[in-house]
């Protein structure tokens, strides 16, 4: 696939002056490996695991993005510990809802795309640049989305120019919209958004934001069967990425477990969680 063509020599496409985009290089050289190059037969539809709820909110000096761990296929739980929040590069992370297989492939491509640009250009891509690259990848998946295999990501990153966390949401056609303060996507997003709206405070500490994110996911799981709540028995906790001037880091299991246990204690006999 790679260097086989001209007797081991690098194919001409590698040496051609061109863009610093990995996707565009693949489009010219190896379109078969791109997700956008694939088509389902007309009228066909298949059932595949779906990822569910992602929430994101800003805090003082950064932005947080969190996701539950469940993937469902119809009425079945396809996977109870799937990761749906990924570091895209040093200063941004992406959470995915929709068809899990396609979404994870898309994230892989997105990660390579950002790293490729960084290596070729010798500099980091701007946050808007990253958001737009992701939008064009979603757009490339439109054909699949129309047959039921849609991917809807949520993108959060730290803007090194503006020195603050920013959130971008998408629709299936690749529309990219900047969100302020907080946002949520996926099947449980309706309930998560309600919770975020009531609990969100501007410029709060990261620990407070972590608690708000876990509360929102809990409320989503409470009313949406496709969203998985924290699994205390199996010790499966939501994935939480915090992005600030130091880069992306994931909250450890211990940190999230402590927040979840406090939340359960507060909601015992008080399911709405309001004091």
């Amino acid at each position, binding site marked *: 696939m790679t260097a086989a063509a001209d007797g081991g020599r690098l194919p001409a496409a590698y040496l051609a002056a061109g863009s610093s985009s990995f996707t565009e290089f693949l489009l010219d050289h190896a379109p078969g490996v791109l997700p956008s190059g694939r088509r389902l037969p007309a009228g066909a539809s298949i059932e595949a695991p779906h990822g569910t709820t992602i929430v994101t909110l800003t805090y003082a000096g950064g932005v947080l993005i969190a996701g539950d761990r469940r993937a469902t296929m119809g009425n079945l739980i396809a996977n109870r510990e799937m990761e749906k929040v990924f570091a895209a590069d040093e200063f941004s992370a992406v959470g995915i809802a929709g068809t899990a297989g396609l979404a994870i492939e898309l994230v892989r491509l997105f990660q390579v795309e950002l790293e*490729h640009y960084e290596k070729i250009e010798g500099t980091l891509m701007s946050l808007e640049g990253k958001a737009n690259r992701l939008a064009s990848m979603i757009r490339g998946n439109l054909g699949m989305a129309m047959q039921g295999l849609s991917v809807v990501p949520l993108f959060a990153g730290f803007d090194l120019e503006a020195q603050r966390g920013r959130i971008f949401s998408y629709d299936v056609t690749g529309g990219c919209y900047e969100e302020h303060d907080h946002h949520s996507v996926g099947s449980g997003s309706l309930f998560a958004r309600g919770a975020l709206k009531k609990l969100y405070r501007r410029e709060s500490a990261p620990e407070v934001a972590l608690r708000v994110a876990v509360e929102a996911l809990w409320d989503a799981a409470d009313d949406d069967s496709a969203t998985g709540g924290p699994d205390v028995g199996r010790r499966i906790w939501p994935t939480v990425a915090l992005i600030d001037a130091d880069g992306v880091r994931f909250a450890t299991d211990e940190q999230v477990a402590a927040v979840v246990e406090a939340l359960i204690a507060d909601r015992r006999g008080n399911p709405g969680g309001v004091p």
Partner: protein
Amino acid sequence: MSQMPFYVSPEQLMKDRADFARKGIARGRSVIVLTCAAGIAFIAENHSRTLHKVSEIYDRIGFAAVGKYNEFENLRVAGVRYADLRGYSYDRSDVTARGLANAYAQTLGTVFTQESKPYEVEIVVAEVGADPEGDQIYRLTYDGSVADERGCVAMGGAAEAIEEGLSAAWSPSTSLAAAIQLAVGLLGKDRSGAGADRDLGADQLEVALLDRSRPRRTFRRISGPALTRLLGGETASEDGSPRDDEAGAHPGDSPRQAASNPQTQRPHGED
């Protein structure tokens, strides 16, 4: 137009091409690549901040070149494309310096014999291992020949004289600071016998390290205050590992660890 000669012997043709390429390479400033305790260090005399002679190819693979900028830049971009496509199609661990060096060798060899002008470049592809014995350094010349070097390489104008100096003073357990000081001393040495040795400062140097201790992407540039500190002879600073915040864009450990599968991006607890 003058007439083309009827016959040129292949020996003469190859020799002319080799002489042409060698001349082009010898004009440039030198680059030194050497193994040290902290990883593989790249030290180049380069007065430009942005036109790099040393760059990152992949997680554990670095690239250094001398000669014509547009030609080796072309090869560098091809190498990044090769590595990224391979890592994307297979896995990050399947991208090796050996594979890349072979692809470069084939490319340089074909250009040397078939194109109207050979590439006036000499390049090094290096892959850092878990310890100095595991390091791989491949040196490729304009005609596509590959040499598997042990420990240290110099390319460019004064390559031979520098290599003599390196082989006298270098050992695999050299610290980063000592390695940089050794290389900078050799780069600044006056070879003509006429002038005094030059004292190269941080702004005339391009220094980078493939850092053995980092997970995933190991390449980092060392510049500014961190480099000045290393040049200043602060050998005591624990093998010189300058902190990331001084070295540039990579504060803290990367959250993206060993594998390329997003599902295995972070180590899990024992749950």
